[in-house]
């Protein structure tokens, strides 16, 4: 490729910073993480909701993500119940998105001449978001380093135009680039810093704490109740009139409702980790969250950002 041989980054944060710089240089708005517990970067409204409607969009951001069932008490070399995803969403998907993506790998120090990069079929589907797309998981030497998806549908709505979505599992990717075998040993900041910190310094203890809570302690009755409450609140928000009686403005509360959907989804994940949801019940719960996501998508397309034009 045409890029110069990149200098290997020295820390986890440098990889994040390089991705930010790279995608900023490609014209993406660099957003900040969403301030709620989510299972993946896709849940950020900058992806889920912004993939809807016809307005062009280009955004990139880091999203802390939680998958309670993946907790391993910080012992597994690369499984974590809390981790970071880097997310890029561009609508409409540009024709050279694969090249742009490969450029981002070079930017973080992956030498294409030495590594084996592969696009392996992975039809992405989020049953909880009522969303699906076609694409790949991207492998670097057998390691899944990213998800690459052309969104076809979100919240039951056809995506037109189609968004291209890139999701990087930052820890795995960084471990690979930095040559680290165990995530907890990975330098978080520059190892030459006055106070060098590893990923373990930052997260080992929390992984233990959350793993114990997720698997054995979380109060399932309370969680079940919270689930119901979030579901009810979402419906209540969306049941409101589009016209705000106080301001007299048309205000469709798609985002506050979507927050409740996110909440319900995370609570479901916790219940799942507690092992109290059976195979048959699972489908029912997923269906309930999907119903919320769908209603939120319906509401979003009734907003200006979702392409609604006031008469």
């Amino acid at each position, binding site marked *: *490729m045409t890029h110069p041989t990149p200098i290997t980054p020295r820390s986890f944060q440098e990889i994040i910073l390089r991705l930010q710089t790279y995608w900023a240089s490609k014209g993406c708005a660099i957003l900040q993480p969403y301030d709620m517990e989510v299972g993946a970067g896709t849940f950020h409204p900058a992806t889920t909701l912004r993939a809807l409607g016809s307005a062009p969009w280009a955004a990139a951001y880091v999203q802390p993500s939680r998958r309670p*069932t993946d907790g*391993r008490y910080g*012992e*597994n*070399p*690369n*499984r974590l119940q809390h981790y970071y995803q880097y997310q890029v969403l561009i609508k*409409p*998907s*540009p*024709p050279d998105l*694969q090249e742009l993506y490969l450029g981002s790998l070079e930017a973080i120090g992956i030498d*294409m*001449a*030495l*590594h*084996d*990069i*592969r*696009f*392996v*079929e992975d*039809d992405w589907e989020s049953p909880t978001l009522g969303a699906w*797309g*076609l*694409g*790949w998981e991207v492998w*670097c*030497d*057998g*390691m899944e380093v990213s998800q690459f998806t*052309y969104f*076809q549908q979100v919240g039951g709505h056809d995506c*037109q*135009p*189609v968004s*291209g979505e890139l999701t990087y599992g930052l820890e795995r990717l960084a471990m*690979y680039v930095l040559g680290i*075998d165990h995530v907890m040993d990975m330098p978080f900041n520059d190892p030459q810093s006055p106070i060098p910190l590893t990923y373990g310094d930052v997260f080992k203890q929390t992984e233990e704490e959350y793993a114990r809570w997720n698997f054995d302690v979380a109060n399932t009755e309370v969680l079940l109740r919270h689930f119901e409450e979030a579901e009810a609140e979402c419906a209540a928000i969306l049941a409101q009139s589009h016209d705000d009686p106080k301001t007299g403005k048309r205000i469709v509360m798609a985002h506050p409702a979507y927050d409740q959907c996110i909440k319900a989804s995370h609570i479901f994940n916790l219940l799942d980790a507690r*092992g*109290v*949801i*059976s195979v*048959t*019940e699972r489908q029912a719960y997923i269906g309930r969250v999907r119903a919320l996501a769908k209603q939120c998508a319906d509401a979003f397309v009734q907003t200006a950002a979702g392409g609604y034009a006031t008469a």
Partner: protein
Amino acid sequence: MPDLLIELFSEEIPARMQARAGEDLKKRITDGLVEAGLTYAHAAALTTPRRLTLAIEGLLAESPALREERKGPKVGAPEQAIDGFLHGAGINRDQLEERETPKGAVYFATIEKPGRPAAAIVAEVLEDTIRNFPWPKSMRWGAGSLRWVRPLQSILCILTTEADTQVVPLDVDGITAGDRTTGHRFMAPARFSVTSFEDYQAKLKRAHVVLDPTERAEHIWNDAQNMAFAAGLELVEDKGLLAEVAGLVEWPVVLMGQIGAEFLDLPPEVLQTSMREHQKFFSVRNPKTGRIERFVTVANRETADNGATILAGNQKVLSARLADAKFFWDNDLRVAHTGMGAWTEALENVTFHNKLGSQGDRIRRIAALAGDLAPMVGADTGQAKQAATLAKADLSSEMVFEFPELQGLMGRYYVAASGQDAAIAAVAQDHYSPLGPSDDVPTAPLSVIVALADKLDTLTGFWAIDEKPTGSKDPFALRRAALGVIRLVLANDLRLPLDRPIDAQLLRHKYHASNGEAELRDLIEEIADHGVFGAAFETIREKLGDADALEALAGDVPDLSADLLSFIHDRLKVFLRDEGIRHDVIDACIAMEGNDDLNLLVKRARALNTVIATEDGENLVQGFKRANNILTQAEEKDGVEYSFGADIKFAEADSEKALFAALDQAEASIDAALKIEDFAAAMTAMAALRAPVDAFFEEVQINSDNQVVRRNRLNLLSHIRKVCSSVADLTRIDG
């Protein structure tokens, strides 16, 4: 004659779709060309992860000119009709020709279709193919509306003759066909032009692309085998994986790596599953120990370090994966060593189905039924219950949570680790079988019992809550469960009347669904255990002062039970049809007593099927039907039942007397044969009646004026009916 080369170049095509897509491309293009008059000598489709390529040799340079004559309306027909004809034929009025026919003057049109150049036809056919390609799943991208499996990036389409190469003019939603393509994504990304298929294939190879998937697969397999062999090991064959991997690379480079020593003690199935499913690695086995010791991975490029970086990376990924598997295995073994109580307990909180309770409830019911069934196959009741109780414990294990496809297999390891007998451990794996029509059927007694109990519990459960399969919908795979019951019973030659266990299990479900009214529990258990229905059930119901609760709970059980049995019979018909047994033959046997004993039923059906295929058998059935019809009509007319018994002293004709003797003899033989369930002998004895019955009908008129003789003959017919009906219900035989 030109050769045609088409390459549809896209972002990476899923491996599993490539072969089919190549065939579809070939079929659609060649069909389209031939339909347009362009025949060809040879066509071949080749695929890589990024290209569908079609090479056609010896294509006609243009389609032949066609001349077609069409008959139109009569001369003088309404203008509208004539205009319509002209429009349809695409000609002008002055091109019409008048011809005299026996029906008067008629217009004729001669349509000349000139030949068209191949390029124009190819462009049309290719565009149509692209727009209507039968991908199993396709997508849109960007702001466009074209659909392809992944974004379509370029089209190469050229016609090559000895003189020159011509690009077929075509534009599909902004993608213009040309003569250029690109090589390997990383090793040779430059674009280049090609002039023919040979040129294309040769240049691709120089650009690190092996176009032929078979060549890639062979290359992978040979290199992998050689590497394994050189290390004194053997490659574990996996054709599906080989095809998949060959579809993931354009330039295969085979690398063999080590599995960390700390993982070698994992069960080989775990290693294989983890490597295959997650990493698409081949397993390499030590033939002496049977252990999986290395892996083979296939990279898509050569590197300056001969793949060292790539292999190290793959090895690292594998270690992380296996660390996960080992984490599950170690944790699971800890639970197994303590007797798996934590798992069985956890299953109490896992819903099986909201109307059928938890997995714990389900396991208890299966164990109870397994206990009931054990004595019938000579197994120990306690062991059967124990095996059933533990058989699904692995559903709570971490390994099965991660790799659901290992359910049962892990159970076997864990139950054994908990200190149980190998026979009890085997039940965990075997009791899911048979899963499909060709899956092996368990034969170990404990496995057979729990497999049966599991399937019968599923069937009765969904029957109890009225969730039966309808049409093509069978979300709980109940047809498969019923077939499983049939195959278990038949393959193991079990003498197991199903009626009672079905009743018992339906009652257990009903009891569970009632939320357990305590005062009924013992009584229900009693009924379930002893399987008393019919008169005995009625008696108990009467004895209960307040019988409503029992009625509400169990009143419909006999009906449900009969319905479920008839569902199983339907599956049996499908099963036996493959064996060549007629459905009416099975019906004739189902109508007999003891039809819940599937082995008895099948033995009878096989014997009947054989006998009615003989001339005697077929004719006897006719004779029986004749006797039965005459008798039925007479009984209706006279309002009596002729079952009194005929007396030979009123017999007049010789054939009549002979029939008396034949019936007596047949009856004795059939009775004796049926006692020992020798249906073949019984059927043969019955078929032997053919000659005397035929002779009787030939000579004798039933409706004699002499009422005594008539009655006696009707009673004789009744005897025929009785004797034949003791073998099967022949009224149900077609024809």
